[in-house]
């Protein structure tokens, strides 16, 4: 009896103990990062752009492996338009008409990472946007009409164009560097064991025509076989220099996540591009793959290596050009290098060694400060008044710190795993402050579930005050690496192509001139698109004819675009008001095929159609 009572006591105590233990286990989820209610009202007012009102800034975001550029309005974070660059885009007919098809060439994808707005005196001038593609190419978008006007490359010798495109302060050059080293000239096969000695990295300076923006080859510099990651041009006091981060200075191969993470320091390469420009102009260097390549072993003074924290990702030059900010992504500190000290160390030959004949500067001699920003620091952007903002991938946060005093003053969490960040005019010599966008890699749980393929999350942060304030989550098209933000009033885009500017040899402006002419097997159709008819409304060709349709949209009215979709032929082009485009195809199937206006235009849009008859 006693025993059974004791047993009951033990049972009750046991249950209680289990209960106590159970209540001590981990919480259901991490403390919520949702904003508090009072923040919501204030945040909502800041980001609300009323119907019909316009945003204050444009944000040009790279589209990563979608190959496009996406344009957002800030502060609303509304997606305004997609600019197709390296990938066909049926919505604007890009990659279907003869010209854009020829520009894309045989590549129908690109991996675009770093947009660079053209600059004058270190300020964004709103003329062009350059953007890289991993396939060794750089594209130029004209901001007068938001159209891709040039795709340059693949540039010889540059394998894996990740470190691109970065413009110099007067857009003299758009710079690129190789992520992958290869034996040169291209086409040479060398066994992987000889990687450290036979493979080469390359930095390329593409010359930009100051009037037209047209890119040409410029010159290149031969580099040790490191992986070059990101770059930034010096400005103001450091104008004339270019800085590049590199990893795998181990010159390792194989499982790089291990083999390339052995050294405690890798390098930022500092390049005196004006000296290189002079050397190239003086005829120095060798021609490899059709381009002038300078070898720093033979031309001293072009390149110096600055030791930086392990596997640095971003390098960013402060608005005054005095500080070069490098972050070792596998460490917890960001290093501020002093440009003046770099120059002194170069003068005093304060070197600790060399890599393939390139001097390595003594870290202690050039370092100004190590800022304990947090874990996994990647990129730094700037505000006015010496504010710096560094993205922390591992901490999933942004750290705000001060140039000069080097103290970290604030942190704001990001959801989740921030990569790049972009501040309003943040790469110029006079950043605006105001807005900062965190371009995050992971978004899970921040949006309605959409299946396994998830959008990226970009978050808007208010940086007008001492404390940063998270305002808004937006879900951007995949996948923004870097973005640049420019004041909206710096751009003056046209709304139609003025008729008098259309110099296309096949342009016609009167429906009386529309019609079909034949030259052997080649058939030319001059077509007019205007509300609400495609003239001619039908035409006949013979099987096997090569048919070129030249369509002029004779509208001069905003937003009156007309499409030409031809069924059964994989053709859809869109012609803007005042524009002429051509599309060429072989009529290889007999029969009757409808064509119609694909871009809604008018009340009688549905009637805007015709027939191709192939006999």
């Amino acid at each position, binding site marked *: 009896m006693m025993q059974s009572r004791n047993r009951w006591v033990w049972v009750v105590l046991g249950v209680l103990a289990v209960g106590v233990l159970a209540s001590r286990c981990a919480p259901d989820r991490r403390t919520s990062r949702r904003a508090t209610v009072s923040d919501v009202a204030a945040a909502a007012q800041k980001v609300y752009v009323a119907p019909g009102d316009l945003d204050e800034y444009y944000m040009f975001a790279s589209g990563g492996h979608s190959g496009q550029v996406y344009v957002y309005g800030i502060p609303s974070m509304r997606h305004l338009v997609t600019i197709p660059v390296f990938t066909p885009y049926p919505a604007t007919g890009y990659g279907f008409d003869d010209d854009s098809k020829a520009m894309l060439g045989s590549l129908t994808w690109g991996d675009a990472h770093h947009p660079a707005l053209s600059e004058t005196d270190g300020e964004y001038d709103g003329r062009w946007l350059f953007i890289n593609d991993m396939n060794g190419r750089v594209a130029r978008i004209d901001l007068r009409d938001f159209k891709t006007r040039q795709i340059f490359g693949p540039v010889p010798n540059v394998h894996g164009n990740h470190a691109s495109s970065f413009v110099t302060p007067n857009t003299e050059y758009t710079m690129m560097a190789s992520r992958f080293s290869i034996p040169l000239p291209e086409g040479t096969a060398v066994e992987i064991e000889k990687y450290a000695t036979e493979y080469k990295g390359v930095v390329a300076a593409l010359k930009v025509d100051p009037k037209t923006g047209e890119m040409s080859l410029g010159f290149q510099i031969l580099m040790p076989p490191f992986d070059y990651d990101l770059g930034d041009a010096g400005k103001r006091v450091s104008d004339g220099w270019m800085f590049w981060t590199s990893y795998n200075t181990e010159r390792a191969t194989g499982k790089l996540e291990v083999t390339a993470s052995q050294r405690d320091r890798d390098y930022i390469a500092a390049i005196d591009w004006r000296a290189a420009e002079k050397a190239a102009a003086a005829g120095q260097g060798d021609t490899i793959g059709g381009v002038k390549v300078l070898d720093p072993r033979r031309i001293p003074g072009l390149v110096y290596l600055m030791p930086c924290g392990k596997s640095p990702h971003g390098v960013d030059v402060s608005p005054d050009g005095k500080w070069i900010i490098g972050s070792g992504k596998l460490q917890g500190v960001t290093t501020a290098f002093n440009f003046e000290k770099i120059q002194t160390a170069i003068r005093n030959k304060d070197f600790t060694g060399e890599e393939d004949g390139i001097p390595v500067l003594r870290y202690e001699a050039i370092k100004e400060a190590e800022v304990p920003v947090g874990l996994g620091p990647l990129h730094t952007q700037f505000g006015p008044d010496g504010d710096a903002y560094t993205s922390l991938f591992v901490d999933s946060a942004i750290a705000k710190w001060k140039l000069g005093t080097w103290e970290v003053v604030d942190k704001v969490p990001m959801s989740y795993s921030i990569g790049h960040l972009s501040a309003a005019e943040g790469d110029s010599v006079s950043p605006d402050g105001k807005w900062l966008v965190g371009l995050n890699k992971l978004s899970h749980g921040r949006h309605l579930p959409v299946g396994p393929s998830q959008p990226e999350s970009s978050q808007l942060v208010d940086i007008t005050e001492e404390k940063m304030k998270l305002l808004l989550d937006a879900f951007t098209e995949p996948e923004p690496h870097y973005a640049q933000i420019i004041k909206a009033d710096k751009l003056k885009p046209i709304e139609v192509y003025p008729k008098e500017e259309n110099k296309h040899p096949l342009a016609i402006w009167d429906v009386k001139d529309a019609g079909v002419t034949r030259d052997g097997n080649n058939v030319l159709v001059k077509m007019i698109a*205007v*509300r609400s008819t495609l003239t001619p409304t039908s035409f006949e060709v013979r099987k096997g004819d090569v048919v070129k349709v030249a369509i002029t949209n004779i*509208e*001069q*009215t905003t937003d009156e675009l007309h499409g030409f979709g031809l069924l059964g032929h994989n053709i859809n082009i869109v012609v803007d008001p005042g524009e002429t485009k051509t599309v060429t195809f072989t009529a290889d199937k007999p029969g009757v095929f409808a064509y119609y206006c694909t871009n809604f235009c008018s*009340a*009688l849009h549905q*009637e805007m159609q015709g027939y191709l008859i192939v006999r």
Partner: protein
Amino acid sequence: MRALLERSNRFLDAPLDLGPRLLLVAAAVVLVAGIALFPLWSMTMFAPQYEEGLRLQIFSYKLEGGNQGQDINEINVLNHYIGMRDLVSDDFTEFKWLPFVGGALALLMLRAAVHGHAGHVLDVVVLFFYFGAFSLWSFGYRMWSYGHNLAPTASVKVEPFMPPMFGSKQLANFEVYSYPAAGTYLMVAAALLVVAALAAAWRQAGVRGQKET
């Protein structure tokens, strides 16, 4: 009655003083300026899709669309759906005779100023008013024709209509405003100047008559 006729005779033959002559020269200048430099009439059309408005200005010798001429094209594109003829300058015979007649009237004013007889001023006044009235009728008739001669094959059938000449009117999704413009006001000013010259001459004739008696 007899006195009045005498005064009238005296008046018509009377040479003009400097004042009325200057008024006539001023009238000629104002008339030529109004016809050569300024639009006579202006029409503006608003619709939800056209918040900025489509603008049309009618000069004595041409049509001019707003937005660097583009608005005329837009008006024509829209009107073709209801089967209205395109507005093209070549269709307006007014653009040939209106500047010619205006110039001729200005010459008659200068002639009266040089010749200096009140009778000539009266001729000018009468011709000027006829010219003004005929021009207005002609303009109105043209508007009426555009609104009434609609192609029977039009994709959108509308009742024939009279566009507004003075004031505003709702036509389908468009609010149409139509008002005289600077050129017309200058023509009115020229008319007033000529009438003033005539009135001054009349008063002079009265004063002279009293002196003679």
